[in-house]
């Protein structure tokens, strides 16, 4: 039994006259996250009201909530967006000290905690934006090291700049208690409500993010940013937005923390907190917003339990002799957590939430369809229905519908067609090797231009140059408008979309989301929209789902829309890339060996899809090795050899050209490798 990760279809069966909704949607739109969030908040609140007896327990719960907030922020930065940031603790420090400072001096005449919180949000936000933009070229280790450096700078400043921190001997005291319409949060019992409110809001934001394009685009930028850029995803902006969002959440946590405690020291935000944040997220589960909650609970309550009991649960009274001293089990906390981190990464990288999900699907996934209830829908355990999908139109039909362009009939018009893509003198050099050497080539309106050449002749590099994936010289114009080279995503804005030689699909997204990445409709895709104008976001999203589903059906993957792309076969992933290209509504499509790895019938299907696209007015540059595939589709063919264009013209004459024959078959004197 395979693990069911997507909750099943729920939006069926009720015939409503309202506007028809698409039947497929991204998995994040399934389930009832708002209900779960409400239940969680109410449940924790009720527990506080009726279950908590001692001050110690209340303090622990508050600490847990503090960690939850800060780690949820880290989940957005690291879990979703993949940015290796050690700066979460430092941003909490900035938020805390800024808020303390603003309320102490009464900035602009206001000394309320809430004003301090606003100032903290602004300052951490500005700092995070500046840092993220400055470090935009740093990747992986460099970014991690840069955030370590930033943290160190922040801590030095906070230790030494006593005018700002108002500290003596590293400790700032007398920080104002938060209050809300006369209700002062001055005891741990009362501060609890502040923490719970903050966590509820932060979790709500994660739901908004997950239910908007932002999350899938952040994941795409995380897993393959160059590909995402060429699809039209503004990867830099998404990365900055996610970093700033997570850092500001840390700043909020820090502000509440210092005001609740009433004092602050830089060490509260040092490297121990930084490592703890990693431990909590990884243990809890890196790919779920509940991961931080579970991880933080584990981190806070388990050591306390080992130390002699927590929340009324008796602990283990057990001591160990080590290094000549008696130790209680809780003393081994960090060894335990460090080992768990290693074991988690080795054995179950999905964390506790992931393991829970697995257990749930193994034990509960077999609800009989007849037993389906609102409860089983709510719990996401109703099995998928296996309604037969309408058969996708066979490619030959598609070709016939739009008028099978006979390769023989078109060339008469060729001279009159305008060029839609003009590349002049494109050159790419890798060290001393000129992989592409001054290639000039034009793609005409409505044509499929074939580009062939032996292995290593520079075909893919030429496409990479056009799409800005590699640095290149020369000039490109799309419909008369010049395009800058060297940065991916520029030609995409003018309607040029490409596919890749090895299909580049996103294994952590569903097929539908993968296709949605290339959406031409970029309205309401930002963070502010996602949080503030939900109805507009949902409206745009539904239209996008429709279009994406249509594209998937067209290539015959309609049934698999909600499946993760990792379940697709190689040939299906090629089709998925094609669906993604179709969804982009391109004017010009650059195809890099789309038939590689396909068998004869799949190749024939592919040809049908391409002809249909051509009939819709898409111009194409088709790189391929299968000559019959090329000659069946293309009226004109260009030939590359050793980075230079050796021939371009009607297919029939080009393949008789002696230079082309030499390039493919080799010449006798053997100067070709």
């Amino acid at each position, binding site marked *: 039994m395979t693990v069911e990760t997507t909750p099943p279809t729920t939006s069926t069966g009720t015939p409503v006259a309202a506007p028809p909704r698409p039947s497929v949607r991204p998995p994040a739109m399934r389930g009832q996250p708002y209900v779960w969030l409400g239940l969680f908040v109410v449940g924790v609140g009720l527990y506080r009201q009726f279950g908590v007896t001692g001050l110690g327990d209340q303090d622990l719960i508050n600490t847990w909530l503090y960690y939850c907030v800060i780690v949820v922020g880290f989940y957005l930065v690291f879990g979703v967006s*993949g940015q*290796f940031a050690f700066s979460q603790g430092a941003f909490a420090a900035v938020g805390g000290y800024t808020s303390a400072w603003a309320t102490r001096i009464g900035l602009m005449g206001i000394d309320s905690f809430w004003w301090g919180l606003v100032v903290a949000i602004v300052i951490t936000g500005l700092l995070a934006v500046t840092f993220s933009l*400055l*470090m935009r*070229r*740093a*990747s*992986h*280790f*460099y970014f*991690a*090291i*840069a955030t*370590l*450096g*930033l943290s*160190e*700078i922040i801590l*030095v*400043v906070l230790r*030494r*700049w006593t005018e700002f921190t108002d500290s003596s001997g590293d400790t700032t005291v007398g920080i104002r208690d938060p209050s809300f319409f006369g209700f002062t949060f001055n005891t741990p019992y009362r501060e609890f409500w502040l923490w719970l409110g903050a966590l509820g809001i932060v979790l709500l934001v994660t739901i908004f993010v997950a239910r908007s394009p932002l999350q899938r685009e952040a994941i795409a930028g995380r897993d393959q940013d160059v590909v995402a850029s060429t699809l039209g995803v503004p990867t830099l902006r998404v990365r900055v937005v996610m970093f700033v969002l997570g850092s500001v959440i840390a700043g909020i946590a820090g502000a509440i923390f210092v005001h609740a405690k009433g004092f602050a020291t830089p060490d509260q935000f040092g*490297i121990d907190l930084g*490592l703890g944040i*990693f*431990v909590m997220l*990884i243990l809890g589960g890196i790919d779920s917003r509940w991961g931080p909650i579970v991880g933080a609970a584990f981190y806070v309550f388990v050591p306390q339990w080992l130390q002699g009991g927590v929340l009324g649960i008796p602990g283990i009274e057990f001591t160990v002799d*080590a*290094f000549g001293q008696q*130790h209680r089990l809780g*003393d*081994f*906390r*960090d*060894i335990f*957590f*460090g*080992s*768990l*981190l*290693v074991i988690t*990464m*080795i054995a179950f*990288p999905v964390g506790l939430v992931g393991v829970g999900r697995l257990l749930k699907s193994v034990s509960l996934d077999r609800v009989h369809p007849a037993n389906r209830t609102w409860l089983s829908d709510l719990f996401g355990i109703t099995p998928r229905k296996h309604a037969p999908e309408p058969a996708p139109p066979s490619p030959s039909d598609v070709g016939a519908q739009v008028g099978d362009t006979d390769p023989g009939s078109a060339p008469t018009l060729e001279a009159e067609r305008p060029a839609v893509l003009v590349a002049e003198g494109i050159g790419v050099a890798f060290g001393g090797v000129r992989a592409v050497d001054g290639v000039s080539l034009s793609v005409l309106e409505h044509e499929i231009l074939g580009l062939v050449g032996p292995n290593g002749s520079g075909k893919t590099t030429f496409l990479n140059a056009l799409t800005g994936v590699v640095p290149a010289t020369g000039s490109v114009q799309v419909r008369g408008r010049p395009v800058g080279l060297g940065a991916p995503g520029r030609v995409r804005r003018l309607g040029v979309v490409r596919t890749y030689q090895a299909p580049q699909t996103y294994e952590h997204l569903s097929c539908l989301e993968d296709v949605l990445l290339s959406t031409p409709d970029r309205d309401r895709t930002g963070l502010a929209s996602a949080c503030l104008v939900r109805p507009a976001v949902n409206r745009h999203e539904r239209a996008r789902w429709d279009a994406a589903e249509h594209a998937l059906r067209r290539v015959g993957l309609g049934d698999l829309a909600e499946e993760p792309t990792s379940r697709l076969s190689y040939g299906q992933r090629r089709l998925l890339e094609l669906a993604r290209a179709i969804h982009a509504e391109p004017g010009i499509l650059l195809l890099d060996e789309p038939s590689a790895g396909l068998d004869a019938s799949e190749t024939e299907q592919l040809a049908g899809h391409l002809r249909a696209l051509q009939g819709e007015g898409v111009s194409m540059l088709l790189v391929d090795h299968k000559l019959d595939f090329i000659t069946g589709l293309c009226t004109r063919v260009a030939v590359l050899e050793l980075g230079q264009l050796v021939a371009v013209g009607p297919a029939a004459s080009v393949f008789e050209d002696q230079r082309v024959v030499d390039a493919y078959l080799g010449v006798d004197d053997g100067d070709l490798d």
Partner: protein
Amino acid sequence: MSTFVALLASGLAAGAIAALAAVGFLITYKATGVVNFAQGDLITLGAYIGIWVTQKEGMFGIGALDLVPGYVVTVLIMFLIGMVLERLAYAPLRGRSIHVIVITTLGAALVLRAFIGLWQGTTPKYLDSPLKGEVLTIAGANIAYQRVLIIVATAIIVIATMVLFARTQFGRQLRATAVDRDTAKLCGVPVNMLSMLAFGLSSALAGVAGVLLAPLGVVDLTLGFNFMLLGFAAAVLGGFGSIGGVVVGGLAIGLVQYVFGGYVLRDFNSMYPFILMLAVIALRPQGLFTRGSVQRL
């Protein structure tokens, strides 16, 4: 003048310290492509093992060793620990994503630090220097011989490491493994052994750093972490991955911290190395002193 000489000497020594810390993790980085974030805690461990073998009843009650033999024993123990670490925390994850491996090194760091805390307690300790705190006086400035020793030792280690990578069969095999592990294996390179040796060597250098740095101040749980950060800064400035560049990067951060920081906003001088590092990452991600294309880390 004497102030300047003293600051210059401090800067040179700090640069050498950063370079020494950097060489350690660059060896594993060059051999396996992984930045080992546990390197700092290995340095701390080295210092504590140095204390363990040279003080009180020594290791396992065999009596305290003299300092120099104690150093040798420390470095050997650290070498073994590095190899064990490779087996436990790195080998099971080979081929997984960089993120996974880095997180594992964080886990290793946490375990090491907690282990040291349990074993040695959290009160600061001291390790003597064989030079007994003697000072060298140049132009009126006092310079501890320990700092001179660190500069000399760093110079020797950097040169030896460069020779190792560039001139020996071992170095060639390490570089080949880093570039393409599978191909190296097909060519008969003993890749498992190499990666164990690289971790061992790296850890042994952390041991050297630990015993040399400890006499400069107190030994506590954060000793190594701070030096590792400076090592990162030095490595970034030198163009991450270049052993020779580390020396230049180390000098740059030592001078900016002590010579520049000796005159401008003195209280904040310990942040200057990191400001310089961030500036380099922002403006020249390939490092200050390397030519060529941006290195994709």
